[in-house]
């Protein structure tokens, strides 16, 4: 696809942040993703984040009903959706009230006039007399009040649509206007509309008319003092797509199972923000993907354990409350030494907490959330596209080490998206299974399920294989034979083995590299999981400012990379920013650096780059 409308000269800027906001019913997420695609095609680097309202839909026009979508894009590398926005699009008063704080001073506001009528003001809890579009309260912004509804209706008139249907095209008008303002290609969206409304030509052309009407409004209305141009980013050449974390995670699992030649069995129970993984996987049955929507999370993980026993790649996924319920069965899987991936898309807790908000406060639960000494490897995804590789690695480790593996994601990267220079399946590393038992695994004619190789990994004799019948269970077992044993020293032995086996995965992970900065010095920022992009951006900014800071990001948290101690000891200050009260910090303090400095935020939101840079400057000075 290519852009049909030749770009008129525009002010060249190297990055921009736009936020669309309106009522849940206004189709904000849709224009967000269309703008994202158009931007990707323009070869800018980008990062996006949808800001959903709480799960239940609130009445139209209320603050609770506001839905938002933010995108940052630029001609250089972009690792976050951006802190504050340059342009804020608001479809109604509530949207403005809720989002104004995110707009940079002097930023552009594009407001849908009708969304500020008496009714909408009331619903937003604003005095009738206090219409912000009129009372001057927005004077130090560049305010554009557009009668979107009116123009849209005119644009689509003659197609015989009712006002309701006509008004549904408002979002396309706005999108068109933004396409003009930021010089994005319009054709791809036109095609998208054609496809989407293939069955209803009128609706299709109405939306397309609205789209162009918006574009032309920008062109003709002279309202804007010029438009912007963002040159393509100098990112590595290759073929790209845009992807969200949950989709990438689902693909990573499918790819791993496919590479291993196994069925993917996903046992789960719906929960925000993990459900999309189920939705995606259930679409791909032709990849030998079996999704099992269980009656609860306990059955979900149990079914996956059963499937793993049978030789499938068993995976279960959930979020906070559901993970709590899986802990007993996680202990069983650890004891059985069966491959299993447990996905936790973290959300803001505790208890039901704030399901649509993000947090990374389940790390210590991943470590210690089971009774007894129950070590399970932990890997954490660091960005939307990294969810693919993290999932692949988790599955590979589970299969090659015959162990459950916990994969941590979070609401921020799960719903966020970024361009992805996706790999070819051939490039994905091979997965060596343990299920090929044969006579060589017999000890004088008998097979024992807990014989181990030098890495302490047992074999995986699958039902159907004659002569290898074996029983495994959750009671402490004698090593090698797997027979029930209450022997004191055997229990110590098995406890040590289970611990050592996880530590042996360090060899599989390999040494970790600094993400940025000098290999030794004053300040090291140590991050894990979804904060990667923000911290990376902050570090780049700081280094550009001439502040000496390095960045290390952990993807594997259990075991820690073998060279972590060395790296941590090469810096005088270790700063650990986390969207929790200091969970990785506790582990680092206990094992490596009791003087580590915490930077914590528990607000259901990701860090802003500024929060990090400010803190580092504070520490540094």
């Amino acid at each position, binding site marked *: 696809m290519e852009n049909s409308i030749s770009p008129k000269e525009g002010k060249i800027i190297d990055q921009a942040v736009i936020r669309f906001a309106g009522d849940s019913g206004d189709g904000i997420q849709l224009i967000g993703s269309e703008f994202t695609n158009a931007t990707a*095609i323009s070869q800018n680097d980008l990062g996006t984040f949808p800001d959903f309202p709480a799960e239940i839909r609130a009445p139209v026009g209320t603050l609770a009903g506001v839905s938002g979508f933010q995108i940052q894009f630029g001609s250089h590398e972009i690792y976050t959706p951006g802190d504050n926005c340059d342009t804020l699009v608001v479809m109604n008063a509530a949207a403005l009230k809720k989002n104004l704080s995110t707009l940079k001073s002097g930023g552009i506001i594009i407001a849908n006039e009708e969304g500020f009528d008496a009714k909408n003001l009331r619903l937003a809890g604003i005095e009738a007399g206090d219409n912000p579009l009129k009372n001057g309260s927005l004077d130090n912004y560049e305010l554009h009040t557009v009668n979107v509804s009116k123009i849209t209706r005119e644009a689509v008139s003659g197609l015989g649509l009712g006002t309701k249907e006509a008004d549904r095209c408002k979002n396309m008008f706005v999108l068109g206007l933004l396409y003009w303002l930021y010089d994005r290609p319009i054709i791809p969206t036109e095609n998208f509309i054609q496809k989407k409304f293939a069955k209803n030509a009128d609706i299709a052309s109405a939306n397309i008319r609205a789209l162009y009407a918006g574009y032309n409004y920008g062109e003709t209305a002279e309202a804007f003092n010029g438009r912007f141009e963002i040159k393509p980013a100098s990112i590595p050449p290759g073929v790209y797509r845009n992807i969200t974390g949950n989709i990438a995670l689902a693909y990573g699992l499918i790819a791993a199972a496919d590479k291993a030649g196994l069925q993917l069995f996903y*046992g789960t129970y719906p929960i925000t923000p993990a459900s999309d993984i189920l939705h995606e996987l259930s679409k791909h049955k032709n990849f030998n993907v079996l999704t099992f929507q269980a*009656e609860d999370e306990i059955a979900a993980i149990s079914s996956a354990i059963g499937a793993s026993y049978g030789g499938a790649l068993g995976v279960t996924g959930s979020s906070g409350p559901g993970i709590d319920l899986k802990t007993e069965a996680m202990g069983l899987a650890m004891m059985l030494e069966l491959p299993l991936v447990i996905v936790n898309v973290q959300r803001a807790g505790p208890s039901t907490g704030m399901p649509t908000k993000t947090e990374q406060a389940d790390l210590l639960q991943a470590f210690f959330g089971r009774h007894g000494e129950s070590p399970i490897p932990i890997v954490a995804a660091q960005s939307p596209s990294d969810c693919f590789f993290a999932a692949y690695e988790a599955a590979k480790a589970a299969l090659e080490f015959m162990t459950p593996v916990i994969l941590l994601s979070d609401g921020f990267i799960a719903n966020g998206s970024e361009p992805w220079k996706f790999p070819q399946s051939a490039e994905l590393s091979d997965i060596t299974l343990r299920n090929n038992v044969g006579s060589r695994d017999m000890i004088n004619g008998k097979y024992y399920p807990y014989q181990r190789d030098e890495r302490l990994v047992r074999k995986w004799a699958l039902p159907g*294989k004659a002569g290898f019948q074996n029983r495994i269970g959750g009671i402490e077992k004698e090593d090698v034979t797997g027979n029930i044993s209450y022997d004191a020293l055997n229990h110590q032995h098995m406890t040590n083995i289970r611990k050592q086996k996880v530590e042996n995965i360090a060899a599989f992970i390999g040494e970790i590299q600094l993400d940025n900065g000098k290999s030794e010095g004053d300040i090291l920022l140590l991050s894990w999981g979804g904060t990667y992009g923000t911290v990376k951006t902050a570090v780049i900014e700081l280094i550009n400012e001439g502040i000496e800071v390095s960045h290390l990001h952990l993807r594997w948290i259990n075991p820690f990379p073998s060279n972590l101690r060395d790296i941590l000891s090469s810096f005088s200050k270790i700063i650990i920013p986390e969207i929790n009260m200091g969970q990785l910090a506790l582990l680092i303090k206990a094992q490596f650096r009791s003087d580590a400095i915490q930077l914590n935020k528990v607000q259901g939101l990701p860090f802003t780059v500024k929060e990090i840079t400010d803190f580092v400057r504070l520490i540094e000075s």
Partner: protein
Amino acid sequence: MSDLLNPDTLSGVLENPASSFTSKDLVTDQDVRWCPGCGDYSILKQVQTVIPQLNILKENIVFVSGIGCSSRFPYYMDTYGIHSIHGRATAIATGLKTSRPDLSVWVVTGDGDALSIGGNHFIHLLRRNPDLNVLLFNNQIYGLTKGQYSPTSLEGQVTKSSPLGVVESPFNPAALCLGADSSFFARSMDRDPKHLQEMIKRSAEHSGTSILEIYQNCNVFNDGAFFIFTDKETKPMETLFLEQGKPLIFGESRNKGIRLEGFTPVVTDLNAAESSQDDLWIHDERDYVKATILSRMFDNNYMEGHLPRPFGVFYQKDRPTYENSVNLQLEESVTSKGRGKIDDLIRGNQVWEVK
């Protein structure tokens, strides 16, 4: 799942020509750890007797259990097996069977394991109806934890946790299963080996989830709970053995019959002049309402004029199995879309190239 989709899972079978085996081949080297005199011994023996007759490859058999005395079962069967956690055997077995329809999957569970902590998986198992054989050891007590009451314990039963007697009314397992759309429910007892063997066979033959409730004596914590059904003395009058297509007859000299007056079962004396066998209730395993009435022949056996307790197959229904429906969808999507290609999947339908 279909061979096409996952060739290697079936390797065991392919490598091995149908090997026949005997009960002895099912015995493991583990010494059996139940209390001397426990009813579990008999059940183990009958299972080991019946299985070789089912012509299933031994290596295709998996026993899955939860936790409880009964749940130690898999360690005593030289098949594949999982001794899992309390109440979850049904869920684990569902996952296994759905992913591996080629296996013969058995669940061994107790009244606490299945009906107390495992109750939710139990009813959802029945709803989904995978082809599992569930052996429910009902001893009306928690044996392994040394004698607390269970959801099948009788009202007033004095146990470690009910010193003044149980105040809850027990589940009626037959009724619960019927209410949850069970496609097969049968009842037998540890002390009637022949009948138990027959019921195990029937359960195995049924396609879909078969529930076999086995009255099992816990001679340590609830001794004699079922003696009234098992003792020579009382058995004839207290038990009613169901046979498909046959009238409901019981008693010392099979001299008692059961008629249905409306929906009410009534005992008639077959010796009595006026009565005949013709108007007796004819057992029909396919009749849901009759099965419901049978399930309600559950009253306290010490009550005056109570009815005998039915044993045998209460109900059987042909319903698609869960694993078939699931794998059918899977195969259909392969047929319609073709076997998925990872590179197409990852690429998706909107890409752009950076030169």
